[in-house]
């Protein structure tokens, strides 16, 4: 059997002088899985992503991605070295760069000709053909979202972290982008952790759903189980 894509064990994080945000999170993810993390606001969802990305420095815990150690007590791999992509809430696009510039930003070590081609391919695969020379503020919310995803995926990360990726899209666009994202993830064989508070996102995206409460996973279960449960209690969650 193949080894897991990601294994996180006993992850602890607290702000300096503040109370614990993560207190012992452990889980593993098989290759290709889309794990959706749900939980009330303040439950530590975003911090979990940031610790896996390496943007926040977990005080304790071990993270292994695809057999490579990202961090433990002794080692720490800088975020820019990790084969992990991240889509931020609010996209964090570079306002001074065009769509092409945004997507090509991480490819700076790739020869120019190849970079141009890969950016063009990526543009096509997220359906943004013809918009490459626009600036972010000239795009709609859905288009911006796609640029944010495209610039991460063009680097072919092993794992994509997404923080409330669809929160500022309207209902129709949301459905459409969600479907596309799922297709892209499947096509590239990329695993993903998606943080959301939206039950519908979770419902449509997840292979498994994990529920975070007070810095701990209180439950992690196949999406099927939760779908059934939600069907019985439609007003909760």
């Amino acid at each position, binding site marked *: 059997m193949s080894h897991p894509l990601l294994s996180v064990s006993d992850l602890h994080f607290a702000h300096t002088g503040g109370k614990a945000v993560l207190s012992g999170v452990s889980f593993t993810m098989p290759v290709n899985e889309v794990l959706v993390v749900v939980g009330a606001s303040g439950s530590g969802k975003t911090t979990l992503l940031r610790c896996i990305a390496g943007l926040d420095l977990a005080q304790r815990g071990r993270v292994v991605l695809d057999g490579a150690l990202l961090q433990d007590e002794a080692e720490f791999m800088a975020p*820019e070295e990790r084969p*992990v992509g991240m889509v931020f809430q609010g996209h*964090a696009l570079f*306002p*001074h760069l065009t769509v092409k510039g945004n997507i090509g*930003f991480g490819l700076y070590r790739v020869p120019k000709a190849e970079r141009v081609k890969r950016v063009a391919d990526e543009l096509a695969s997220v359906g943004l053909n013809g918009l490459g020379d626009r600036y972010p503020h000239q795009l709609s919310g859905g288009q911006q979202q796609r640029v944010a995803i495209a610039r991460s995926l063009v680097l072919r990360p092993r794992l994509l972290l997404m923080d409330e990726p669809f929160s500022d899209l309207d209902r129709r666009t949301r459905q459409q982008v969600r479907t596309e994202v799922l297709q892209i993830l499947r096509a590239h064989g990329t695993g993903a952790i998606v943080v959301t508070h939206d039950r519908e996102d979770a419902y449509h995206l997840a292979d498994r759903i994990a529920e975070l409460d007070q810095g701990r996973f209180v439950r992690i279960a196949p999406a099927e189980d939760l779908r059934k449960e939600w069907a019985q209690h439609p007003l909760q969650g």
Partner: protein
Amino acid sequence: MVVVVTAPFHAPAPEWSHVYRDVLPMHLLETILLLGGTVLLTVVIGVLSAWLVAAYSFPLRGAMRWMLVLPLALPTYISAYTYASLFGATGTISLWVHDLSGFRPDIVGLPGLIVVMALVLFPYVYLPARAVFASGLREQLEAARMLGARGSRRFLRVAVPLARPAIVGGAVLVAMETLNDYGAVKYYGIRTLTTAVFRSWTGLSDLGSALRVAILLLLLVVLLLWWERRSRIHRQQATDAVPMVRQRLTGKRAALATIWCLLVLVSGFLLPAGKLLLDAFTIDRTDTWAIDLIALRNTLGIATGAAFLTLLIALFLVFILRHERKSWTHGLVRAATLGYAVPGAVIAVGVMTAAGTIDRQAGLSFTLIGTIGLLLYAFTVRFLAVAVQPLQGSLTRQHSNVDDAARMLGASPGRIFLRVNLPQLRPAILAAAMLVAIDVVKELPLTLILRPFNFNTLSTRVFEMARIEQLREAAAPALLIVLCVLPPLLFLDRQLARSEG
């Protein structure tokens, strides 16, 4: 201001053809070289230091963060004199180097002046850049990290372009300070537009030509301001105000960061200030301290008065700008703030001309010239820009919805401004007052020309000593200037630091 702009068109300028042909070309060229070099170097020093302090942790970082604003406490001309006394051809350190190696360093010249000016003026860029780096760009910088960008790439490709409006804003202030300097450029033998103004006025006795050159100077400033505005257009500033998580540097990189900051601090402040301290206490006479203390009292008095008056007028300007949204108000405010780039002596002439006209028209039995009131008014003309900028910045961050809501509750514009806008402006008002006070303490020519009888300030004391080439005697009042400027400067730094988180 109005006088400076309109006078040249009816004032006779008998020597204009000479000024135009034989003076302007070289003076314009050297002005541009000086301006370009100084602005470039301040941007490099200011932005790099701001980035290190905002993005990384390294030994002494906490102290460096605030100490790097200290060079602003030194008036440019004082720093320039001090540097010349150390590194000029016959300066103390140059002589020593010459004895040891036979090589004779000489900082007095265009490249040297660029370095000296940049070392004093870089905090104008450092402060705003630090503020943006520390709290305005976290998301974009983290996104860049997740896209594999290392420190230098994040700095050059994300942080610097995104902080450009702030950096350009600081650079424009640096440019204005460079343009209006007279003492340092004269001593270093540089020909600038400002020296051309004086050459026409005092050398050729042609005030008309002098004012025409001053207009050229103003045009240059208008160009700079246009550049500043342009850098703000089409760029929505990211304003997520989340403090950046600093990366810890270790080993050689940490040492390099500390050394860089120390180098900037020592050469920008500690070295010249130390030399002043040494001179002030090795001078063999102490009888001047009493005069210096009276000068200190006068300095604090006019700084307070000018800050108060300037603030009043600045508030009035931003009020009409807010509630009278017509195109002429923008023009008025912009014209009113040009004074910052004009050499003080030119403003003094303008103000005297205006006051003289009023004297005659009103048939006064005394003259307004030489009153404290006129001196304070002249400071206002000169430093209005310094006060308007932070106020305007803070006011544009107040959402106009609030004004509309107040209006729906039946408040008049005046009442809205007093009861809604003004309370929120408090930090900006305080900052603006401090900035004006700092500038007034450091200012020289206006005070010199417009002061009442028997009225000395610290800067006139420094000038009087420096003028008769007694640079050591100038050290004590110069040091007092630094001491006066430090508290408001550090207050400003703290205020900014709080907003950085």
